[in-house]
């Protein structure tokens, strides 16, 4: 195999996405069902990853937590890609004042520290999954705008785009048929890398109590809650954090590997 890290990333993403999708069928218990007699159980045959202080099954909660984590992260990156990507491509294509104003606005958004801007947006929208998805979407909008603007500028001046224009193709047609297919590798790489960090930001915000609210299972909140009984049973803390790490790691390896594979010019030298 030429790039083992890429394949490891793809496998991690595939397995975890599958686990999240089939959580209702895979989970051995209801994620909120309390088994008081089996409180703070170690990993064992009945509870494969142990239980928390209410006797809730760690594996089942983690599987449902994956659903929330992936859903919120995917929604946030989709928001950022649509708005930020749209702004970046359109700014490069139109040029002129729209380009200058839009990119300055992106500079402003980019100036905020990620967590602080997210906290600010959540302060406006209120804590919860929807607020978190929009908050992370806003934070990542300038990143997509910047990463798509530069290649669009290069493509804009290619001969085949000039040819398309010469035969009278509309802006929409050129962007759809000539720009987007060529931007696809950049979009794919950036989406994968940002999903990786979106997962970490979602988990951070949930850990702070600002993300997904109870009773929806959330890995970040699970880790936060597990700190209160850490000395009695560290397992829920260990496994919920490991799940967050594996989710972020999968997308990062995938994005990093795709970057090497799809664009040799971007191949990292380090």
């Amino acid at each position, binding site marked *: 195999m030429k790039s083992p890290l890429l394949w490891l990333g793809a496998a991690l993403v595939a397995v975890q996405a599958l686990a999240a999708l089939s959580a209702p069928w895979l989970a051995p218990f209801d994620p909120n069902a309390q088994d008081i007699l089996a409180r703070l159980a170690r990993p064992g045959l009945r509870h494969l990853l142990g239980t928390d202080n209410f006797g809730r099954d760690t594996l089942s909660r983690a599987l449902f937590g994956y659903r929330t984590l992936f859903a919120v992260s995917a929604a946030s990156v989709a928001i950022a890609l649509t708005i930020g990507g749209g702004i970046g491509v359109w700014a490069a294509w139109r040029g002129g004042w729209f380009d200058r104003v839009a990119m300055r606005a992106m500079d402003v958004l980019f100036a905020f520290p990620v967590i602080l801007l997210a906290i600010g947006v959540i302060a406006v929208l209120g804590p919860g999954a929807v607020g978190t998805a929009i908050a992370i979407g806003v934070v990542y909008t300038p990143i997509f705008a910047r990463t798509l603007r530069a290649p669009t500028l290069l493509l804009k001046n290619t001969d085949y785009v000039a040819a398309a224009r010469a035969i009278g193709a509309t802006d929409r047609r050129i962007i759809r048929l000539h720009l987007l297919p060529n931007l696809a590798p950049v979009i794919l790489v950036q989406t994968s890398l940002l999903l990786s960090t979106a997962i970490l930001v979602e988990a*951070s915000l949930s850990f702070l109590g600002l993300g997904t609210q109870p009773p929806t299972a959330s890995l970040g909140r699970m880790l936060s809650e597990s700190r209160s009984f850490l000395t009695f049973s560290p397992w829920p803390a260990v496994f919920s954090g490991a799940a967050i*790490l594996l989710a972020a*790691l999968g997308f*990062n390896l995938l994005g990093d590997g795709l970057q090497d594979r799809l664009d040799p010019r971007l191949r990292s030298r380090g």
Partner: protein
Amino acid sequence: MLRAILARAAELGVVALGVSILTFLMIHLVPGDAAQLILGAEDVSPEMLAETRRQLGLDQPLVVQYALWIGRALRGDFGVSVSTGQPVIGEIAGRVGVTAELTVLALAVAILLAVPAGCLMATLRSSVSDYVVRVLSIIGITIPSFWLGTLLLYGASAAMPGMRLVGYVAFAEAPLANLQRMILPTIALALPVVASLARVVRAAMLETLGQEFIRVARAKGLGEPRVIFRHALRNALIPFITSAGIAAGYLFGGSVVVEQVFALPGLGRLMVGAIAERNYPLIQASILLATFTFVAVNFVVDLLYIAADPRARDA
């Protein structure tokens, strides 16, 4: 050189203006009225509401409101905290030191570990060291610092049951106790950054080591340590400056979360509490001050870059 500095300052000035406008507008996007929020109760008379709105300046046009707000903010007046009635600036001043200390300690530790590690990795020059540093940096980027902190806390309390590891003691009161309690949060915050900074040092070092003046230095018969630390490192550090600046911002954001793990009374915990109380003046002021600091740090990083690299002076 002056031109490059002024151009960058003008750019950042525009960004700072935009940041202040956006932070100001944020409070106007909040559902409900700030006056209603402050009065609290649902059944306030319309006259009282109108009076409070007038006092807060909410009856003025938005532009006037912004001008008044930023004018007061520049003089350090961010209004009073909704929950305590105390000036917001005082509450922030009491907390920001913790976050700043944690960020600076973590950045210092990360740099002190990353530079020698990156140099070492560059001298090994094998595909194995490339692989190791790459995998470690990816794991570092993706490891949740609050998880690492939680595990460190568990490990340390198991290993040293008697030691007090959480909570905060001011450095001015008891420097040793302060540093002792900052050890774990600093490690949790710094460790994930070390590998990615080391990767930057390694790449820059490898590029520098391939250049003519290094061959000259070696041809003169200088020892390898002297070649690396005296000749190559100074050049290799130029791209590192930018990466360290980015890391500073990342560590600041991370410290907001790590504070929660170690029960440190910093800005992060202040802001999280403020959201629950809908304490908007406090949130607004924290975001504005932190972002301005962040922009200023970026400016300093740019200045360092211009000072270190003569080629950047003509940009």
